[in-house]
């Protein structure tokens, strides 16, 4: 005991969401040594808890032209460099009888002024493109919206950065900053899975922790005001729309329906919450109501479609007034604490959107690289991500019956060539999303997967219509084989996964979700006796024994 591992690097990045992993890649491509730390898995915070919408910028065109401009620029870049994470579905902005049709021309004008292509459609044309759209629509405008898989984007950023020597520590938290006078020179960290302490010394530290960035600033005795806004979404059992469907009006609650692989998502609500609630988000009955009712206006079939689960994320809104009242920005907030607070060695990148993660990374890395005396230009907008390299020009098939094609879409063809090609490696574990043993082995060994929830983020295992009913048991066994887990640990991983899934099911526990939950409970508790696994080896195991006798 007492031994503390020490690491040295040029840049320490805190936060493994879209922004943090994009900075990691940007640094690595410029030849800057870096390490990334996340308290959980990559993409496990706000990044993985939104629509996964590849904005064209049209949504913001009327109300926030700066955001709209950033979105369309990044939209074009991501389609090139992250084609394996993008589905170029296009999007519709529909006008319903209750909406003001005259808004349409304002909208089209605003779009064209920031360079977003639009195409005005008659109701008949819109219905032909998107048969499930509300047939009572008065008109529609087609824009280059799409979908963006945030898990895949983050995993690809990390994979690419590692190629250039970057390192990642997941399930690790900052406990305190290491200071030398008015300079931050590193951080004391703790791996929350192994309880091992370690220290990372760095020339520059970047706070990319999103809404949790306020906490990180507090470790440096700095005050940043953030206003968390909860956004809730519902996952539908199958893909009911091919195009993203928006309302052609000023942005409001529950007015975006986004397809994603084999499912569709309806969202989002928006509610300011207290900062103390950011780690215990709950989707309320009222939110479920609004999402179903508003979603059904976009596509009436939604009302009859099974809801798989609900989830919520937190928008990281920042107060940029500097303490004089309240001026909340939805845009990108880059804080050079040397300038702002006289504390060198720390830069915070806050606010922003999933869409602008690469841009935020470029802005941040520019500032930090200059401090390090590194003059290499940013190339993240030019170099395709791994997985996108060989498919940069041709869009991979979005849905396919073959595992290798599904996996190639997820990881790129080069990665698939590394999979175990034996009958065992090719055998399918998750039938809904066509995930093979070989792909799981690859994820466990190469993609920093430590549990079944991480595995779901990397492979979509358990994300399809069965929600991992049977396949998670099969997959948990593979952690014994490839992940050096004991049988006891792997059964705990299984229970952890099912408890995580339960969080998303509780808000929508009716109809088929309740049927399925009963089935799951029969299998895992009735047949498998799962509840007792967590008690094994604990004192509780003996304590609870109370007998009923005559």
């Amino acid at each position: 005991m007492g031994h503390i591992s020490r690491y040295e690097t040029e840049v320490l990045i805190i936060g493994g969401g879209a922004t943090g992993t994009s900075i990691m890649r940007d640094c690595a491509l410029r030849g800057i040594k870096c390490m990334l730390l996340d308290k959980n898995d990559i993409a496990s915070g706000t990044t993985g808890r939104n629509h996964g919408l590849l904005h064209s910028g049209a949504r913001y065109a009327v109300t926030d032209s700066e955001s709209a401009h950033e979105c369309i620029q990044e939209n074009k870049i991501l389609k090139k460099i992250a084609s394996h994470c993008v589905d170029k579905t296009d999007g519709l902005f529909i006008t319903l009888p209750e909406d003001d049709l005259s808004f349409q021309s304002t909208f089209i004008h605003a779009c064209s002024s920031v360079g977003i292509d639009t195409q005005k459609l008659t109701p008949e044309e819109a219905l032909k493109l998107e048969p499930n759209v509300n047939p009572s629509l008065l008109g529609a405008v087609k824009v280059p919206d799409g979908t963006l898989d945030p898990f895949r984007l983050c995993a690809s950023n990390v994979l690419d950065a590692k190629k250039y020597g970057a390192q990642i520590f997941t399930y690790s938290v900052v406990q305190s900053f290491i200071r030398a006078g008015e300079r931050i020179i590193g951080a004391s960290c703790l791996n929350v899975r192994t309880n091992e302490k370690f220290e990372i010394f760095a020339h520059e530290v970047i706070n990319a922790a999103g809404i949790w960035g306020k906490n990180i600033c507090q470790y440096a005795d700095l005050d940043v005001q953030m206003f968390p806004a909860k956004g809730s979404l519902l996952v539908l059992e199958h893909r009911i729309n091919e195009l993203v469907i928006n309302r052609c009006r000023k942005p409001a609650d529950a007015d975006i329906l986004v397809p994603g692989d084999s499912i569709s998502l309806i969202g989002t609500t928006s509610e300011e919450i207290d900062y103390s609630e950011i780690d215990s988000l709950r989707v309320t009955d009222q939110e479920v109501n609004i999402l179903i009712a508003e979603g059904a206006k976009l596509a009436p079939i939604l009302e009859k479609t099974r809801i798989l689960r609900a989830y919520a994320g937190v928008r990281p809104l920042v107060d940029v007034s500097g303490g004089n009242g309240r001026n909340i920005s939805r845009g990108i907030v880059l804080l050079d604490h040397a300038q702002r607070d006289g504390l060198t060695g720390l830069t915070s990148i806050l606010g922003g959107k999933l869409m602008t993660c690469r841009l935020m990374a470029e802005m941040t890395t520019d500032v930090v690289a200059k401090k390090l005396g590194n003059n290499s230009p940013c190339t993240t907008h030019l170099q395709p991500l791994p997985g996108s390299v060989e498919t940069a020009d041709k869009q991979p098939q979005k849905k396919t019956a073959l595992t290798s094609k599904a996996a190639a879409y997820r990881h790129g063809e080069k990665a698939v060539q590394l999979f175990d090609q034996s009958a065992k490696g090719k055998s399918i574990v998750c039938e809904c999303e066509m995930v093979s043993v070989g792909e799981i082995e690859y994820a466990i060994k190469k993609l920093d997967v430590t549990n079944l929830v991480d595995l779901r983020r990397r492979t979509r295992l358990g994300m399809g219509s069965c929600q991992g009913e049977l396949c998670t048991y099969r997959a948990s066994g593979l952690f014994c084989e490839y992940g050096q887990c004991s049988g006891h640990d792997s059964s705990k991983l299984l229970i952890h996964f099912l408890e995580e899934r339960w969080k998303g099911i509780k808000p929508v526990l009716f109809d088929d979700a309740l049927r399925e939950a009963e089935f799951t409970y029969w299998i895992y508790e009735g047949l498998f006796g799962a509840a007792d696994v967590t008690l094994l080896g604990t004192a509780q195991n003996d304590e609870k024994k109370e007998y009923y006798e005559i």
Partner: protein
Amino acid sequence: MKFDSIIIGGGIAGYTAGLRCLEAGLKTAIISNGQSALHFSSGSIDLLSHTPTGKIIRNPEAVFEKFAREFPEHPYSKVGKEIVFESLDWYKKILASAGIPLTHQENGDNHFRITPLGTLKSTWMSQPYIYQLPVRLEEHQVQRIIVVQIDNFRDFNSKMVSDNLSQIPEFKDIKIKNVSVSIDGFSGLKRNPCELRSIDIARILSDDHEISLFAEKLKKIASPDDILILPAITGNGDGLAVLNKLHQLTGLTIHEVPTMPPSLLGIRLEEAMSRLFINNGGALLKGDQVTKGDMAEDGDTLRLKSIYTRNFKEMPLTAANFILASGSFFSKGFKAHYNQIKEPVFDLDLNTIEERKSWHQEQFFSQKSHPFLSIGIKTNTAFNPMHKGVVVNNLFCTGSSLAGYDPIAQGCGSGVAISTGYYSVNQMLNNSGVNR
């Protein structure tokens, strides 16, 4: 179509009632909509392992009267001790006649079966190749446990079984070993052998040559004093024949553990009951679903005259008496709407819970039971349900359609199914309105 009795539902409660009706000489039909819960069950008969307050029951027979006094709303309390044990005895006899001999501890104790996660579940009556561990676990006689992993079979993981078993304090001094065994018949298949399910393996092992090759391998890894844990991978359509043979060939003490569904242990029970029902002259309407019923006033009660099904469309099925054994949510016996739970065919009165957020617990797995599992139909003591407060006098509810118990937390699902199925037929025969 006209019957004396029609049973809605083809699970353990439905078959119990159906077989009892046939014994009473009634012209009987079972309407079954596909797979019952038996396809993912342990194939053991749970009698009662816990009280609704979570206390452990080691001998259900000994505490029955006390339990009935303390928990009068539990179906067992309504059926009564005598009929509960009479029904289990009867069930044991008919299953034995169908080639599945079930046994229990002579002193009436529950016993433990080993689960696929290596935990222990208390049950009461089991198939012959379930090694019955004493519920007073310190009295166990186990010396060594060998857990068999079938190579490339993902629906059973021996490491989870052995690692969790070895964490049980009473097992800390015994040896628990993991051994991989391959099945020769896997090579030469057209399908990927790594994707086989339990029923596919059962098909391979029903071949005499394959089972003797398998037996030879098992003999090399275990001796008769060991408990040999095998996943349930035999007996799809042939009951215990293959396991009996394996036992003869090896002389080993086999303990079958269920796999991920399909669970052959449960399927065996369903097949045995279904075969008996058909052989005894019952009409099995499989893959059909009841859509609605016609009720008529009968004094101050209601009477179900006929029912309609998806397959028979507008042609009514009539009977003197009906038994509802349609299960709970999974088998569509109940339907949960956004903020309300309903019995979808007859709109029978339920002991429902108003607020949706009270239907469940915070944690999925805990020692507390989920309230939705205890939701069911309100009945009188004869298990007649009510429609808008009025008793339906010739309809009887059984099994998990009944309110007032949690089959999983209280470890009583199959016991309640058998005893209420049996009891309902008694009530039906006593029913003054019986019209044969």
